[in-house]
């Protein structure tokens, strides 16, 4: 593997019937990422279950209950590497708690693969998946029209699905959509180019994943540095060292830059940007570094270092697209802990503006209960201002989670609008 190879995270949405597990199995198998002992285990299980040949879908089974009941309960992460890239798949189950799991998998993804059964075309589930991909601002969407072998590899079927998809997705904000006709079962256009669809001029799925441009997925304009810890070694050689440890959440910081520390508003200049391997001239997202400033300023965890001419908004009332992830519904006017970058405050859901019917994608304002898997636009009031960007501008400084203080569970995830 080459030193400049990148990491690409993608999520797969679909149910067992769409051939999602088969597709993942196929990607791993054809890219030679399945080991012999794993393959043997799958072969044995396939035989026990009386399947013909090797059922690649079995490769994605995980927990005991899942193996016994033949369902997927939770997001599972899988890994494979080609000579061009390293890949992380967030494999999200299609049936149970799909919103919760898909939202989780989508939150860190560069790309989403949405599976459509060629025989059925775009169905409600496809719309849900596309909607969540756009809600979570996954930069690239690949619609795989699967089971092309069952529709005689027909170009017309493929074109119809594209037309159906484009009709409803035009209302959503998806930046980059591609369509690939595949057969996960037979391997057409997954890793290897299909010999059955000469009419398709595009690249197979793996090649698409290997070559799509992802460097600009991260905001490189608005410099944001949420402070995680203060490093004060107080050792012989670093007596007066005071470094601010954190991971750049957006933009580029350079030595000598004029910066403002929020929320205090004090300004200073970047003295050094340090790493274990030595000083660096500049740091960009998502680098973990430690920054020292020319002036002694009181800075603590939760503060944000930004460039003086480009600041985030400081808000106590924020509007958020909220996904509820917990079995117990939201309690009206109850207090939660809100977590935003390295900051933490108390917060209250003040108002539900509307709720989205995930099946029709319509907005409603009559139903004001927020329960598991619901997606609502809400107003949240926090005890102290948060330093926020719009989620569309920055997925790190634009996202929050809510924690229920009574259970300590993460109950909701939100995108700032």
């Amino acid at each position, binding site marked *: *593997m080459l*030193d400049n190879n*990148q*990491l690409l995270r993608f999520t797969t949405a679909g149910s067992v019937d769409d051939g999602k597990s088969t597709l993942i199995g196929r990607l791993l198998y054809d890219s030679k990422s399945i*080991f*012999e*002992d*794993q393959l043997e*285990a799958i072969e044995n299980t396939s035989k026990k279950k009386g399947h013909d040949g090797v059922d690649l879908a079995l490769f994605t*089974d*995980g*927990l*005991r209950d899942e*193996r016994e009941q033949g369902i997927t309960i*939770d997001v*599972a*992460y*899988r*890994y494979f*590497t080609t000579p061009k890239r*390293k890949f*992380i798949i967030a494999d999200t189950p299609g049936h149970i708690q799909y919103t919760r799991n898909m939202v*989780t998998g989508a*939150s*860190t993804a560069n790309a989403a693969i949405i599976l459509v059964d060629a025989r059925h075309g775009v169905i409600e589930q496809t719309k849900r998946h596309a909607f969540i991909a756009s809600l979570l601002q996954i930069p690239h969407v690949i619609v795989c029209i699967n089971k092309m072998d069952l529709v005689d590899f027909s170009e017309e079927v493929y074109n119809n699905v594209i037309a159906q998809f484009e009709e409803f997705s035009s209302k959503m904000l998806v930046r980059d959509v591609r369509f690939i006709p595949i057969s996960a079962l037979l391997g057409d256009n997954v890793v290897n180019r299909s010999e059955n669809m000469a009419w398709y001029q595009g690249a197979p799925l793996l090649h698409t994943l290997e070559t799509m441009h*992802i*460097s*600009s997925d*991260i905001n*490189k304009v608005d410099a944001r540095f949420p402070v*995680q*810890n203060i*490093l*004060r*070694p107080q*050792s012989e050689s670093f007596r007066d060292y005071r*470094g601010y*440890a*954190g*991971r750049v959440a957006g933009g580029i910081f350079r030595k000598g830059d004029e910066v403002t520390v929020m929320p205090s508003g004090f300004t200073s200049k970047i003295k050094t940007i*340090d*790493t*274990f*391997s030595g000083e660096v001239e500049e740091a960009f997202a*998502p*680098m*973990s570094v430690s920054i020292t400033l020319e002036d002694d300023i009181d800075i603590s965890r939760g503060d944000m270092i930004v460039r003086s001419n480009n600041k985030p908004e400081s808000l106590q009332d924020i509007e958020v697209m909220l996904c509820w*992830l917990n079995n117990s519904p939201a309690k009206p006017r109850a207090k939660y802990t809100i*977590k935003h*970058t*390295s900051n933490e405050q108390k917060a209250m859901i003040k108002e539900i503006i509307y709720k989205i019917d995930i099946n029709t994608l319509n907005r409603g304002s009559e139903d004001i209960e927020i329960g598991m898997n619901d997606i609502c636009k809400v107003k949240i009031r926090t005890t102290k201002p948060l330093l926020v960007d719009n989620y569309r501008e920055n997925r*790190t400084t634009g*996202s*929050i*989670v809510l*924690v229920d203080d009574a259970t*300590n*569970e*993460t109950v909701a*995830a939100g995108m700032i609008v």
Partner: protein
Amino acid sequence: MSKYYLNYLDELESEAIFVLREVWAQFQNPVILFSGGKDSIVVTHLARKAFYPSKIPFALMHVDTGHNFPETIKFRDDLIESLGVRLIVGSVQESIDQGRVAEEKGKNATRNALQITTLLDAIEHHKVDCAIGGGRRDEEKARAKERFFSHRDDFGQWDPKNQRPELWNIFNGKHFEGEHFRVFPISNWTEMDVWNYIKREQIEIPSLYFAHEREVVWRNNSWIPNSEFLKLEDGEEVLIKKIRFRTLGDITITGGIESDADTVEKIAQEVSAMRQTERGNRTDDKRSETAMEDRKKQGYF
């Protein structure tokens, strides 16, 4: 703008450093679970980087089964000394002596499962609220569902069906008295990534990983090292082979593979051509299809 991206190893490193810094911010008394294996060595190396120029603000905790490779203990003690951090040892032998656990019987008896009690006792005794481990999601199917910040109840148990959702890079380490977290900074790394990183960073690892001549016995499809704990079965004989270990656990359960790889470069090359998973040589995972999940639920690493 094209130069403003990280390669995959830098991105994995940056993610792990971010996670380690979150641990320091969110917990009172975290420790690094240190086994002497390559994964915990890499985690320790990352902790050094995360807090530089400060020292690692965590103690290292070693669960000592008493069935160690002598090389592992020497390596551990040297590392502790050079880092200037505290070492906490939980002893399985003590747990046995105190009657907390009973030794397994029979040919395939090991102390692997006994570690769970010792680990949980040490966590309770030292009031540890976060144990950082080198577990990776690619290792095993139950681990594929593990969170970076993984909650354990006050019995130390993992409830895989009721895990907290983990979105973006927001980690929730909130817990009640008596509960703790397991945190896995290198969740997203594969075995190959670990080796490429060791190579790039020139991280020192125990000599056991390199090909060397050793007395071994062929058992369960791998070369089990001869030791005072090994009881020969009928038909088994001790041979001298040039082997190395892909993972390090107890001397009683860690099988070696025949190899000539005596440098990190050669190991990385060998691993990239491997057709067996690394835990394929661990008899502890072969007990049943869900052996890892069952142990993890009880509180295993």
